[in-house]
């Protein structure tokens, strides 16, 4: 891993068109500004971890196909109620 020391308002470039600026430093929190082309996605890493965790949880909920039929009834009931109104 490349490690660089930066001060407030200084920045680094990643490639030619991605700039990361140190906007604010307060205690143990650093605020970063990221200037990047629209095509580049920037997300907090926790988001990836959360989604991965939830995908695995979804896969672990080994619902049986027969059960799914009962669960589908819940939707039908909800829909009927909506139509009644």
């Amino acid at each position: 891993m490349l490690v660089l020391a930066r001060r407030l308002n200084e920045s680094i470039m990643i490639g030619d068109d991605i700039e990361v600026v140190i906007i604010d430093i307060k205690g143990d929190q650093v605020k970063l500004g990221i200037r990047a082309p629209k095509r580049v996605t920037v997300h907090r890493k926790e988001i990836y971890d959360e989604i991965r965790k939830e995908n695995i949880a979804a896969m672990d909920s080994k619902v049986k196909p027969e059960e799914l039929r009962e669960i589908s009834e819940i939707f039908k009931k909800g829909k009927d109620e909506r139509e009644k109104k």
Partner: protein
Amino acid sequence: MGIKIKTRPFGEIEVTEQQIIDFPDGILGFDDVRKFVLLDAHDENSPLKWLQAYDEPELAFVIIRPVDFMREYELVVSMNDIEAVGADTAENLVVFAIVTIPTNPSDMTANLQGPIIVNPEKRLGRQAISLSDRYSVRHKILEEMKKAAEG
């Protein structure tokens, strides 16, 4: 001509080429699984569907379209995600959310933080990342439906 595959919900079945969707980047946590098949539930009218891994019979997600349980839903993802399924706008994409079903199915939740986007024309799919802070990994489906019913 049909292609025979083994599925978790239905055992061995025949599917058509049109039902096979490529996920070039896999799905987070299942990065090596690149091919899925979209299957209706037993009851075709059910909003719940299966996203079955083509090569792994045991691997199948329950999915639902957000519009089938929410009053309103807006797909907010990066251009990068949209281009990854060979589209230039979100307009013709089909959006699904992966459903987590706990022991009490009434508490089932949908993951809107990582929506599954599919370009039916190119049969390309991807788990995108929502840029909207309105959506999280666990939306209670029945509660959302209640809200929708109340208008």
